[in-house]
């Protein structure tokens, strides 16, 4: 029983493409699930309820908010906050910068992390244990302890106040999490599969790209989502390393809604919704890749 860790992969692989699609086709025919659906829906509504405050705040004029307080029901409704917030938050610029950063950083981060994870999980990397420890430790290092050396380092590269300059530190601080998750998933892929591919004459690179990665789609997409959210919301590095308005990212731009003595709360709420909604939409599309049976056909069966 101690080897139960192996149960999943061994059982999975030949059926990986069968199981989910099977489930999908079965689902409508089965009765039941209604009770659970109702309970989960109620829990979900409760879960979502605090966000009502965010939405009502975004939809009322600032004067109404200041005159009546956050918890009052709006006397007046408006969409103007969104138009204003777009300008105040400098979203035309910060959106472009954040998106550029995301596209530059996240795929690259997932790729190099997957490579290291593969080396750790399957390639008998020398000093593997030491490297695992070193990577694990990275999780505990707070950004603000390292901020001055990172600043000096980037300055010596001439990479201060530039979006590409952020990629290095962002990659480094994303690596521990990504490597640990991916190596945990890679480890569960059976060695027999790799052996079989080797018999067919595949080298490690081909095995990595045509076998390991496609088989790990749920894990890769999960890591991609989590990393994208972290990148999208990262504040401290962006705050310290970027200076000019033209280079700021969304979280730094959100500071524009705060003043020394009071906050433009309605603008901030609208700004937060503007900042968050695309990530949520992306999440809806991406999660299909985790659970939707879209991995089918990846294996040659």
């Amino acid at each position, binding site marked *: 029983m101690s080897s139960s860790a192996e149960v999943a992969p061994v059982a999975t692989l030949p059926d990986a493409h069968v199981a989910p699609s099977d489930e999908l086709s079965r689902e409508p025919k089965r009765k039941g699930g209604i009770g659970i659906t109702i309970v989960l829906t109620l829990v979900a509504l409760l879960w979502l309820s605090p966000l009502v405050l965010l939405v009502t705040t975004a939809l009322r004029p600032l004067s109404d908010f200041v005159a009546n307080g956050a918890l009052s029901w709006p006397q007046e409704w408006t969409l103007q906050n969104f138009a204003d917030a777009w300008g105040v938050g400098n979203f035309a610029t910060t959106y472009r910068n954040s998106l550029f950063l995301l596209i530059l950083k996240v795929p690259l981060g997932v790729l190099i992390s997957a490579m290291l994870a593969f080396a750790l999980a399957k390639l008998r990397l020398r000093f593997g244990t030491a490297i695992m420890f070193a990577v694990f430790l*990275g999780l505990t290092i707070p950004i603000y302890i390292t901020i001055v050396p990172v600043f000096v380092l980037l300055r010596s590269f001439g990479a201060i106040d530039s979006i590409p300059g952020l990629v290095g530190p962002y990659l480094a601080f994303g690596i521990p999490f990504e490597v640990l998750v991916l190596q945990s998933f890679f480890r569960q892929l059976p060695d027999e599969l*790799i052996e079989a591919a080797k018999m067919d004459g595949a080298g490690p690179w081909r095995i990595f790209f045509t076998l390991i990665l496609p088989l790990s789609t749920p894990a890769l997409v*999960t890591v991609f989502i989590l990393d994208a959210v972290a990148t999208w919301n990262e504040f401290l590095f962006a705050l310290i390393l970027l200076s000019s308005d033209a280079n700021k990212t969304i979280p730094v731009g959100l500071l524009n809604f705060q003043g020394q003595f009071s906050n433009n709360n309605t603008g901030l709420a609208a700004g937060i919704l503007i900042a968050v909604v695309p990530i949520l939409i992306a999440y809806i599309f991406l999660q299909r890749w985790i659970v939707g049976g879209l991995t089918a056909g990846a294996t040659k069966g």
Partner: protein
Amino acid sequence: MGTATLEAPAVDAAVARRRRRKYGGIHAWLFALPALAVYLIFLVYPALSSLWFSFTDWDGLSPTYNVVGLENYINMPKDPVVIQALINNIIWTVITIVFPVVIGLALAILLNGKVRGKPVLRLIFYTPAVLPLVAIASIWGWLYNPDYGAINSFLRLIGLGSLAQPWLGQDSTALAAVMVPAIWLRVGFPMLLYLAALQGISQDMYEAATVDGATKSQQFWHITMPSLRPAHYIVLALSLIDSFKVFDLIYAMTYGGPGTATQVMGTWMYFNVFQYYQAGYGTAIAVVITIIAIAVSIPYVRSQTKEHAV
């Protein structure tokens, strides 16, 4: 069912392991190199060059400082806030691991099964994790308002007005009051990882078990849970570190207060490094956090680097 398939692969695995030794070497390093290089330059080097300051009295701003040896470390046990922070850290870590992981696992299993509107439900339970902390702190601050907040209003509505509290305004409830939003926003993470892991369990195993007359609960304990063991490891390991280094949620919601009632190691380090101009001492706290993390991570790393769990 599970054990039957085990025997053959276990033998194969032993053979495979021997063959695999041919791998490694230069290829392994080529795979490892890009990530390791970035990691060394932008994380390990800055962290190590900061480490030095834990042996100094540097204020975090002056061009000069004095080396004070282990003084910062020796002073730590005498700092009453450090003791309180450690206790808070332990409470925080236990609660904010147990609840999100259990709820997240339950949601993952339910949302992987027969439920209508799964994509929407999966979205809703993950949404809090996407919000910036400034939003979370404001919203929950409003909900906890002793006079008008939704929580006390609800208690009064159902006739439990006597339980209404100034939740964030007294030492006795403040930490618990911050844990609730922490659980709220952290459920999405284990849910997502478990959802991914559940894709690796074949439906056939459940079908076979059903044919054999196994109940749902037997299936859960004998198929689902064992199959998720690697996922448990990684979820627990990551949650442990994440919980232990908590900083920004507490900072945003209570600022460590009232008084120092909700200080944790992470916030106390931040206050020292940045706000009190005691960078030497603050860095020493960071080092202690890291050392504790090493200690708790040893079992995990060893479990991951053993050949296989045979």
